[in-house]
C-alpha cells in the first residue's frame, strides 16, 4: 500500500508562545519547531500499516527550506522518502490543499493520512478539502483504522461516542489523538534518514492558484489568569459564582 502523509511544522506544544506586539504573528526566535503532533500520529499509523502489509510511506510538506528538519524526523521514524513543496510565503489552507491534491495526483497513493488539524492554527480543513478536490471518501477524527483488501474501516471519535465507517480506497483519513502513540526515531533510523530521498519542488511550478483567500488580521494572546481567592463557606461560594462570576 502506498501511503501519503502530509506534515506540518509547528511550534513545540511545550514552548511558551508570545504574540508579537503588533498582533501580526507570534515571536519565532527561540521557538523549537516540531512535527504537528497529529501528523506525527499519522506517520506512526502509516508506518504500522506498511509494517503489516508492505508498501511505501511518502511524506509531503508545504513550506520553507527549514521544514526539511521535520521531514527528516519523519524519515528517521521510518518513512521511505519525502517531498518538500517549497513556498517562502505562508499559504492558507485552500492553497495548501490544492498543492497536496496535485502531489496526490502525481504520486497516486492508496490512502492519504494526515492530522485532523495542526496545533498552531487549529483550522481542521486540509483533509476535508483534499477529499473534495480528489473526489475521495474521507474519515476524519480516526481512533482506529483497519483494512480488508481495498476496503478500509475507521472508528471515528464523535460527540457522545464512536462511529464506525467503511469505504473503498483511495481515501483520506485524518487522525485523532488516541489513534496510536508515535514511536521514537532510533539512532540507526536517524543515521539512515540522512541517505533517504528528500525532493524539493517549487510551489509555483505546480500550476496551482496560491492567492490567499484568507488573511489573518490580528492575533491576541489569551487573557491573563486572575489570581484565585479563598471563600469562607459554601454559601459564599454560591453567592460569588452567581453574582460575580455569573456562571450559575
Amino acid at each position, binding site marked *: 500500500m502506498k501511503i501519503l502523509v502530509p506534515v506540518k511544522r509547528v511550534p513545540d506544544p511545550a*514552548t511558551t508562545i508570545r504574540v508579537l506586539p503588533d498582533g501580526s504573528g507570534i515571536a519565532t526566535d527561540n521557538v523549537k519547531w516540531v512535527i504537528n503532533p497529529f501528523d506525527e500520529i499519522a506517520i506512526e499509523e502509516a508506518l504500522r500499516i506498511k509494517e503489516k502489509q508492505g508498501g511505501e510511506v511518502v511524506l509531503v510538506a508545504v513550506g520553507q527550506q527549514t521544514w526539511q528538519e521535520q521531514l527528516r524526523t519523519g524519515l528517521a521514524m521510518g518513512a521511505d522518502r519525502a517531498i518538500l513543496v517549497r513556498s517562502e510565503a505562508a499559504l492558507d489552507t485552500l492553497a495548501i490543499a490544492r498543492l497536496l491534491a496535485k502531489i496526490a495526483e502525481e504520486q497516486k497513493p492508496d490512502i492519504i493520512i494526515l492530522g485532523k488539524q495542526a496545533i498552531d492554527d487549529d483550522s481542521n480543513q486540509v483533509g476535508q478539502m483534499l477529499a473534495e478536490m480528489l473526489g475521495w471518501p474521507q474519515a476524519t477524527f480516526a481512533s482506529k483504522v483497519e483494512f480488508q483488501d481495498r476496503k478500509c474501516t475507521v472508528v471515528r471519535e464523535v460527540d457522545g461516542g464512536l462511529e464506525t465507517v467503511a469505504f473503498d480506497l483511495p481515501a483520506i483519513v485524518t487522525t485523532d489523538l488516541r489513534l496510536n502513540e508515535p514511536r521514537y*526515531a*532510533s539512532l*540507526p533510523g536517524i543515521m539512515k534518514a540522512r541517505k533517504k530521498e528528500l525532493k524539493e519542488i517549487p510551489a509555483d511550478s505546480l500550476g496551482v492558484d496560491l492567492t490567499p483567500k484568507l488573511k489573518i488580521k490580528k492575533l491576541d494572546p489569551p487573557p491573563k489568569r486572575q489570581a484565585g481567592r479563598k471563600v469562607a463557606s459554601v454559601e459564599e461560594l454560591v453567592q460569588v459564582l452567581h453574582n460575580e462570576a455569573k456562571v450559575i
Partner: protein
Amino acid sequence: MQSSEHNGFASNSPNGRDAHNRLLESMSAVGIANKDVVEAPYLTQEHILFREQVRRFVDTEVKPRGEQWEEAGFVPRDVLRRMGELGFLGVRYPQAYGGSEMDSIATAILAEELGKSTFGGFAVTVLVHTDMASPHLANAGTREQLERWMPDIVAGKKIAAVAVTEPDAGSDVAGIRTSARREGDNYVLNGSKIYITNGVHADIYFVAAKTDLAAKGSRGISMFVVEKGTPGFSVARALKKHGWLSSDTAELVFEDCRVPVANRLGEENRGFYAVMKNFQNERLVLGAQAIGEAQAAIALTLEWVTQRRTFGTTLWEKQAIRQRLAMQAAKVEAGRQLVYNTAWLASQGRDCVKEVSMLKAYCGELVNEVMYDCQQFHGGFGYMREAAIERMVRDARIHSIGGGTTEIMLEEVAKRMIPSRDRT
C-alpha cells in the same frame, strides 16, 4: 519593583512591573525545562534529532520511574534493553554490530541528556556500559571477540562493567595487584576489585590484571573479558553509597578464576595503555553528565524560587538569589562549551588530554558548587528526601572523585602547561 530596571526588561515595557511579570510567566516550569541553549555550529541535524529522542526517553521512561530504581538499588534490565533497541547504546560502534558510527559529540549529547534526568545513578549505569566498559572491547577486541560480544552489548542484552580499581590502586593503575598466571590455554586470575559500577548486575566484565609480576609499574598489565558465572569469579558484596543509589556498585573477588586465552583483550602486558587511552573518553562523558545535572538543578531551582514567597515576594525577586543563580548559569554554560569543544576536538581525532583533564576538574567541582547553591535556595524543603535536589546533591559529590579526582586531573593539566615538559 525597583529591581526590574536592572534586569534589562524594563526598557521594552512602559511598566517595569509588567515586564517583570512577563519574565516570571516565561519561566513557567515547562518553559524552563524545555528551553534549549543555542546549539553549536558543529552540531548536525542528526545530533539535534538524537538529543530530542534521548530527552523524550528520559522524560517518559526515566523520570517517572527513577525513584523506584533508587529504592531497588539498580536500573531494571528492560530499561537498558529498550535503550538498546533505540540504538542509544551503540552511538559510536560499527553498524555491523548494531551501532550508528556517530562521534564524540553524540556521546556528549547522550551523557548530558542522561545527566538531566536528575537520577545520576541511572545515568552512570548507562554510561559505564556504553563509554567506560565496552570501549575496552571495541578498542582492543579481535574480530572474533567483537563478533562474539559486541552485538549483545549494543542491544543491551549483556550489560558491561570495567574492573580496574583495587583497594590500593585507582587512577594509579600501575599499582594493581590482581594477577593472571598463564597455565596452558588459560589464565588463572587471583585478587579483588572494588567500587565497580554495574558490578552486581553486569554480565560481562573487563578486568585488569598483572600478567608479569616482575615487570615494573605500567608494564605487565593485561585486560581480560570475564563473564558472569565463570567459576572462581564472584560478587563479594554490593556496596552502599552516599549517592547514585540507582546504580549498583560491587566488590569483586577472583579466586583461581580460569579465563581462556581467547578472552584476553589486546596484547599481553599492554593493558595499561588501553586503560589510559579510554580514560579520556570516560572523563569527557563524566564532564558532560555533570553539566547535564547542573543544568537540571538550576531549572528545578528556578521553578522553586519563582514560586516560593517569603516576606511578601518570591525568592526570585531578591537580587542576591537571582544574581547567584545567574552566575552559576554562566559558569555552567562555560563548562558546557568546554565539554562540546573538547568533544569536537576528539571527533576530529585531535589530541585533547589537556582539555579533557580541564573539563573533568572544572565540571566535577562546578556541579558541586551549583548543587550547594541550589539546595540552599530550596531552603528546608531541599533537605528532605522527597526533594529531587536532595538526591542530586548526593549524586553530584562523586563527580570530583570518580573517573579521576580533581587533584589528579589538575596534575594532568599542570604537566601540560609548561611547553618544554609537554607530552614527555
